[in-house]
């Protein structure tokens, strides 16, 4: 359904622009007048989205003492503890997008191939709900579950296995990753299900009739068709994990040094003199990374829509 719309709007501009080029001054004035209708929105988005973003970018390149141009902030932001922060953030985001990506795909496939409509509806509703669980409440749910005296930890201790003796802690990297799965898996189920629905039974039957094994079908037909959707969905999860702040802050009180937490500490006032703008440089770095991820995502979505509509 999305595709015909895309095509029609993609086809429109050339048709319209040809006469527009020849249009008189009055016509131009009229289309400028038509744009006045979106002025309130444009002004609002400008004031509360574009101006703050511009302040970040500007500040990232500004010397806090002289006010002049400098690359010093970025230099600090990409060295030492701040570079480590980016590395940890990216590691955490990769793990919490690839693992739930695969698990979500498996769950979505298990549901999709079932013949129970009730199961499909139940999983789709539950996914919509759990994908929106996040932030502070989720942190407390997990404190009660796998905190040092949480219920699941008690159960495991009961069978002689204390995860806290084996390098696990809710308040470190491993724990945070476990918590993120809680909203990332359902999100993956939500975004990958339409792609699985797009795999036509006829393709599978055609492959079977031609003597293909199940593995050959997935390697040569199903896999290639699904791949762009799968990668795109994983990137979407990556973006969400990369910018998340609340859950980690609530769980670790800022002791896990990922980039969003480091940016937060700049606002809380513990800043060395001369480094006032490093927080903005970090923010600039985050925006650049997410923007790259989103561009790749858009490209993959376009590829995915070639086969799946």
């Amino acid at each position, binding site marked *: *359904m999305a595709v015909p719309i895309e095509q029609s*709007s993609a086809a*429109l501009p050339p048709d*319209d622009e040809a006469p527009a080029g020849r249009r008189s001054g009055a016509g131009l004035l009229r289309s400028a007048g*038509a*744009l006045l*209708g*979106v002025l309130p*929105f444009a002004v*609002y*988005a400008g004031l*509360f*989205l574009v101006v*703050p*973003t*511009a*302040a*970040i970018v500007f500040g990232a390149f500004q010397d806090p003492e002289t006010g002049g141009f400098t690359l010093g902030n970025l230099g600090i932001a990409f060295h030492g503890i701040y570079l480590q922060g980016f590395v940890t953030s990216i590691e955490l985001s990769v793990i919490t997008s690839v693992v739930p990506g695969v698990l979500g795909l*498996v769950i979505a496939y*298990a*549901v999709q*191939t*079932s*013949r129970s*409509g009730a*199961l*499909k509806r139940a*999983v789709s*509703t539950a996914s919509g*709900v*759990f994908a*929106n669980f*996040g*932030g*502070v*409440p989720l942190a*407390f*749910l*997990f*404190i*009660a*579950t796998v905190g040092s005296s949480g*219920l699941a930890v008690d159960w495991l201790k009961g069978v002689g296995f204390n995860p806290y003796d084996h390098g696990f802690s809710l308040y470190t990297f491993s724990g945070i990753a476990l918590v993120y*799965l*809680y909203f990332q898996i359902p999100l993956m189920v939500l975004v990958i299900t*339409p792609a699985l629905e797009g795999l036509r039974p006829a393709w599978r*039957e055609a492959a079977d009739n031609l003597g293909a094994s199940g593995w050959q079908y997935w390697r040569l037909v199903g896999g290639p068709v699904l791949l762009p959707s799968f990668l795109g969905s994983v990137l979407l999860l990556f*973006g969400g994990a990369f*910018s998340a*702040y*609340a859950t980690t*802050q609530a769980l670790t009180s800022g002791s896990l040094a990922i980039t969003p937490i480091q*940016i*937060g500490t*700049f*606002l809380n006032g513990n800043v060395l003199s001369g480094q006032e703008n490093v*927080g*903005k440089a970090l923010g600039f770095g*985050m925006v650049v990374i*997410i923007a790259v991820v989103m561009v790749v995502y858009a490209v993959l979505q376009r590829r995915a829509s070639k086969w799946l509509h």
Partner: protein
Amino acid sequence: MVALTSAPGVESPGAPRGGAGLAVLKRSWGRWVVLLAAGVYFLVPLYAALRFAVQTPDGGTSLGVFSGIPDQQGFPDAFGLSIKLAVVTTVITLVLMVPTAIYVHLRLPKVRRLFEGITILPIVIPPVVLIVGVLQAAPGALKGTPYLLALEYAVLAMPFAYRSLDAGLQALNLKTLVEASRSLGGGWLTTGFRVLLPNLRSALLAATILTVALVLGEYTMASLDQYETFPVWVVVYDQANAHVSVAVSLLALVGTWLLLILISLIDTRRRSSPPGES
């Protein structure tokens, strides 16, 4: 939408094949293992939180913790502030987005993609980054009030609000509705308030619910702007009484859940009887 409605009907072909009985059994066995494991992972934390919340110091259980929430120190102020922010944000979002979305759909179909792109931008700029820029750029008068948060929450709500409105507008035959109303002598205000808004009822409700849910749960910007909204209070209060914080979190999740169920109910109703669809 097409895929959604046709999905339950297309399951039959290709499922059971002759001689594949064992494979089907094996596959469905695998399916139940997967679903069971997922079920355990998603339900155990809910159960653990409930158990932790109702535990009393002497080892018994009591639901008193839930009824005691409104009396906890700081709760009325924090919750009140969050409600006020939710109301202000919703008003800003609707006043800003509804006329613009209608106008763009009706008059400027060419800039629709651009408009959509701008409303998606807040997803690219994480709240933790945005608040840094906001506190840098905002004039002092705004920085001294919590309503600066409402102004920014309206930005964060843009992607969700726009998508709801866009879905509602696409389901309408907007041009016909407007032309009919105009040719019957309705002015622009009459057309807007008596023709378009009633037809967009469910889209407006969905946009409102999503905005309210976002504001009530937002922690990042509020905590960094040093205002004690509801989620910030939950974290701070954990130091005093962890049982209360877990109980409140559980209620917040159930509340969000109910709101989302409400949206999906509205959505189903909209699908079964699309108003004004040609």
